[in-house]
């Protein structure tokens, strides 16, 4: 074998490996980074500060989050086996309601942003699923690990679950929803959620 043939072979194999091994900061991480930066730019925008611009700011954040989150998948996973019993209209209603509940619960925390640092730790892609691990460094110096779980939808990556300190958001709601539905009924759950969302 001539050295030139060996060199070609090496080039060929290294090309295969270059395609096969995922790049460190791949598409899912880029997507999460993009969304995070967009939200931070809204939260830190001095023009949008103040209680009178509250609604506008919240709507802007919601818009950015909607782009990245797969609300249907989140709702489906949270309701689990009860999801299949719903008709299309109920499903639509639930997706909106669940979105509002999460918005109510977490938006205030996002708005309470006070210079926390975000570092991107790891990314795992397996077929149409991806995991993006980040760490939030609070101003007090504690690190909070946050894992985003994404699923490929067309060309886009959408979040279907978040785990903070290893605790899954979907699992948390799945257990609670299941409890309420088995104790009473789906209608009762919707009523409870509506009350929660309407609370000031």
């Amino acid at each position: 074998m001539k050295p030139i043939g060996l060199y070609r072979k090496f080039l060929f194999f290294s090309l295969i490996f270059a395609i096969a091994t995922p790049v460190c900061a791949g598409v899912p991480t880029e997507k999460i980074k993009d969304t995070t930066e967009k939200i931070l730019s809204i939260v830190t925008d001095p023009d949008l500060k103040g209680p009178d611009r509250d609604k506008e700011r919240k709507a802007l954040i919601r818009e950015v989050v909607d782009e990245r989150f797969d609300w249907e998948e989140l709702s489906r996973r949270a309701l689990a086996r009860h999801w299949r019993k719903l008709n299309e209209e109920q499903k639509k209603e639930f997706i909106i309601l669940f979105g509002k509940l999460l918005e109510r619960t977490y938006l205030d925390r996002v708005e309470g942003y006070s210079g926390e640092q975000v570092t991107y730790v790891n990314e795992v892609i397996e077929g149409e699923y991806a995991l993006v691990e980040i760490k939030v460094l609070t101003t007090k110096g504690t690190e909070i690990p946050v894992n985003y779980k994404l699923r490929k939808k067309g060309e886009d990556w959408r979040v279907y679950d978040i785990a903070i300190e290893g605790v899954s958001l979907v699992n948390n709601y799945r257990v609670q929803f299941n409890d309420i539905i088995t104790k009473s009924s789906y209608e009762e759950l919707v009523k409870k959620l509506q009350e929660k969302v309407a609370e000031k």
Partner: protein
Amino acid sequence: MKRFDIELTVGLFIIAGILCLGYLSVKLGRMEILGSKGYEVYALFSNSGGLKNGSSVVIAGVDVGRVKSISLEDYQARVLINLSEGVEIQEDAIASIKTKGLIGEKFIEITPGGSETIIPPGGRIRETQPPIDFEQVISKYVFGKVD
């Protein structure tokens, strides 16, 4: 003839006793001799803290299987679970490691999902939740209060 009868009876009793002992030790030790019924699935946890071979796997508090083995794979815990026949786990089910009571033993709880796809034998439960490390949570709380 009479003497032979007594010896035979004693022998039979001893054999029966040994069989009972064998059965007990297999049951208590949760050993499997003839291979277990059901099928196997596996799950990857970032931390399997305190889980052991033979730990129970439950759905809604009902025993549906046991942990067969725990090994290291890519610095994650690969937990092999043996599930009873007839138990179906959906593709979006979540397996979480929980503690019985505050300081009890660890077990795996599976919260069933809503997907139409069922995990086949040898498949993987993708969604997992490691046990909450109370020590870490407390230390975070403690060190978080520096100022």
